[in-house]
């Protein structure tokens, strides 16, 4: 079973609620779910749609082909009917259309008979449940769990009435369900909470804001200060103050907001104060598309900041990856006293996927803070020269008689302004030296597909899901194909790429940008050449189907 339902309508028509209920009902019935959300940047009107794909096997991409369109307006049919499979159906209210090609139902009429126009979507939901063979009882249970008590009852009635409106088409078996249903921003936020982030500040910017909102929801219970700051400049500077004082701190934004943080990023570099910053990339440049996806900030994130300083950049590949990598980022930031930058993408921030619950016992907390015994000199040296470049980091207020001075000027071991030429060179080298130990912790990209593939895909971040589906399907067809998916991307790991790239006939770069930024890194750091590229930059994410199609043309 592999079934895709598109639910479309105008902003404000309540498609989010309907999708939220349906995806959860399907999940609780034991199926794998992948919900792709396509929004326009408006609060009312426009055309929004979401696609719920479900299967008895894990799904990692949305599907281009549709089995059903549940349309809240005529537009939703017009926009998407070309993507319907031959036996695909359209379900809509009979006021929208009574075209014989469609399944038109008295949704509004039924809702009216319950004295509540607003429950028409639940009538439709009931009809779809019966059509797909999903039990009414489960539907009612999910409504009860998800809806506010005062609207539950009327929606329950609507669901029941709807259930009668359409005949059963499928009989699908109940399967065991132990999964969670989660998106990338929720997973990122949970990773930060689990890692003991005590200070999150930021300024709202789609598609980053829901991280702040999620953390805020648990802030009091987890003792986290969540703070909406006057601007992103203030946010990163504030987070650095908190981190200097010894708590784990994070901020995040989307491209424009991250751009405002750049000066303070350079500050983090020279004061060697740990910080985790994420950039939820949207389509750029400038304001671009607020609610659409892209991977065009890779070069920006790697180089952002004046002067030379060490940072680590991690691209998040899936919600699961977002959870574990975010928690790991805090350890790496603390250990190396550097900014660790997380890159996510609008697509990843929003899609919902089923997954086994995260294993919190796998998260470790490694603070690497200095204690009294680490301070061997009479006057503490915040920037002591050491072999590996990492100076013992004391936080203020811990040891009587010792003070901690950090400084954005070039400074000496004590943290005092120092323009001495030798000291400058030694200090630059000290900071830079940390890269040697950091490199040993860098994780090589994930590899999927056939061993020593003739066709090697290279990609990074959230294209993972679609690439994975495509590679699996093409392998089943007997093609020799594999993919390297970059997570840790700076410092740029090259071992696996060199090993596989040397034997591949083709190296195909797949990215959501127009210039091939990963390809340019490969050119810079290896002797390999990408032979082909699939670049998409219309703001819409690649699907597994689309990659298969485009690879079919290439290979």
């Amino acid at each position, binding site marked *: 079973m592999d079934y895709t339902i598109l639910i479309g309508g105008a902003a404000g028509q309540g498609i989010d609620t309907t999708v939220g209920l349906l995806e959860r009902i399907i999940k*609780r019935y034991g199926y794998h779910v992948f919900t792709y959300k396509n929004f326009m940047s408006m609060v009312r009107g426009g055309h929004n749609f979401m696609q719920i794909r479900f299967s008895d096997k894990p799904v990692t991409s949305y599907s281009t082909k549709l089995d059903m369109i549940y349309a809240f307006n005529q537009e939703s049919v017009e926009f998407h009917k070309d993507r319907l499979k031959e036996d695909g159906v359209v379900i809509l209210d009979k006021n929208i259309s009574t075209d014989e090609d469609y399944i038109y139902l008295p949704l509004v009429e039924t809702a009216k008979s319950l004295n509540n126009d607003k429950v028409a979507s639940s009538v439709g939901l009931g009809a779809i449940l019966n059509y797909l063979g999903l039990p009414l009882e489960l539907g009612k249970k999910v409504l009860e769990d998800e809806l506010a008590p005062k609207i539950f009852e009327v929606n329950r009635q609507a669901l029941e009435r709807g259930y009668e409106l359409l005949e059963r088409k499928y009989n699908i078996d109940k399967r065991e*369900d132990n999964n*969670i249903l*989660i998106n990338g921003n929720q997973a990122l936020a949970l990773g930060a*909470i*689990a*890692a*003991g982030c*005590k*200070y999150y*500040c930021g300024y709202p910017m789609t598609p980053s804001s829901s991280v702040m909102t999620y953390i805020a929801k*648990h802030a*009091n219970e*987890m*003792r986290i*200060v969540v*703070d909406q*700051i*006057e601007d992103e*400049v*203030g946010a990163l*500077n*504030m*987070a*650095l*103050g*908190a*981190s*200097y*004082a*010894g*708590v784990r*701190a994070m901020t995040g934004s989307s491209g424009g907001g991250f751009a405002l943080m750049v*000066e*303070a990023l350079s*500050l983090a570099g020279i*004061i060697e104060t740990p910080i985790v910053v994420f950039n939820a990339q949207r389509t750029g440049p400038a304001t671009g598309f607020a609610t659409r996806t892209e991977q065009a900030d890779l070069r920006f994130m790697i180089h952002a900041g004046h002067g030379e300083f060490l940072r680590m950049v991690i691209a998040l590949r899936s919600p699961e990856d977002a959870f574990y990598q975010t*928690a790991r980022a805090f350890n790496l930031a603390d250990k190396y006293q550097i900014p660790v930058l997380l890159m996510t993408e609008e697509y990843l921030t929003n899609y919902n996927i089923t997954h086994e*619950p995260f294993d*919190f*016992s796998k998260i*470790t*907390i490694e*603070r690497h803070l200095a204690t009294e015994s680490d301070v061997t000199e009479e006057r503490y040296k915040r920037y002591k020269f050491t072999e590996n470049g990492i100076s013992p980091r004391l*936080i*203020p*207020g*811990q040891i*009587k*008689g*010792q*003070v901690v*001075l*950090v*400084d*954005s*000027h070039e400074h000496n071991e004590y*943290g*005092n*302004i120092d323009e001495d030429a030798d000291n400058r060179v030694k200090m630059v080298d000290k900071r830079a030296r940390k890269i040697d130990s950091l490199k040993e912790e860098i994780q090589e990209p994930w590899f999927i597909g056939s061993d020593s593939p003739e066709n090697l895909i290279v990609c990074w971040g959230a294209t993972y899901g679609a690439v994975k589906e495509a590679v699996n399907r093409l392998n089943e067809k007997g093609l020799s194909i594999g993919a390297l998916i970059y997570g840790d991307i700076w410092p740029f790991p090259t071992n696996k790429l060199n090993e596989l790239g040397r034997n591949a006939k083709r190296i195909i770069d797949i990215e959501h940008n127009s210039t091939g930024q990963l390809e340019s890194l490969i050119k810079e750091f290896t002797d390999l050449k990408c032979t082909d590229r699939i670049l998409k930059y219309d703001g819409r994410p690649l699907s597994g189907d689309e990659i298969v199609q485009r690879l079919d043309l290439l290979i």
Partner: protein
Amino acid sequence: MTCEYKLYNPTWCPGCGNYMIRDALKQALEELDIEPHNAVIVTGIGQAAKMPHYIGANGFNGLHGRALPPGIGVKLANKELTVIVESGDGDTYGEGGNHFIHAIRRNVNIAHFVHDNQIYGLTKGQGSPTTARGQKTTLQFDGVKLEPVKPLALSLTMGAGFVARGFSGDKAHLVNLMKEAITYNGYAHLDIFQPCVVWNKINTFRWYKDHTYYLPDYYDYTDYENAYKKALEWDDGIPLGILYKVEKDTYDDSFDFIKNGEPLVDAELNPMDAEKYMKEFY
């Protein structure tokens, strides 16, 4: 005395008002018995902002215009630290103007000392947000054409609960204002007149002497409207002292877990504490 602050050699110009401000700061902290490891001086960039290098407290010498944000971050992370934000008039009212406005609204328990020499010192004499209109500078050859910021009126408008002005030329008075600001529970704004002997030939030590007067003992600093009038006084004499002081709820205390808990920095971190949130996703 058990509580003593070490001093280090400054690179300020001879005769600079910053020396006296530093001496007053040292004396204020020592008299309040706040030990160096419990005090943090957070600054931006400028001559004033070099303070953490010349007095042995904890220091965060950050970016130009960005002294307040890290100061706030430090205080929320560790409520036991005494946080003093110090910076120039350009740093605070120019580059950092937005942070200034919102720091007042936020009302975190920190003291903010602005070394107001009415000029950009470090960058050699350009007009600052408090330079008088018409004053010729090393850049504004025809004189400054902008209306000066009125810092105290601004902070009063934004709702600051502690607003004061000092003068580096009267140390005893300044020490007292600093102590009041540090012990005030909330954001305390202290603007300090400071002659810049090199770049501001108008607002000299003499000029400040001639143009300022002390608020009398009977002055009622809880009267908001009167304070606002005082904050606007300029040509006919500028008041020194506490213009306004009232009790206000602080931002820090609005977090129950900060007010009634241990400092955040001492929190025990355990990933398993968050595992319960998985249930939201079933």
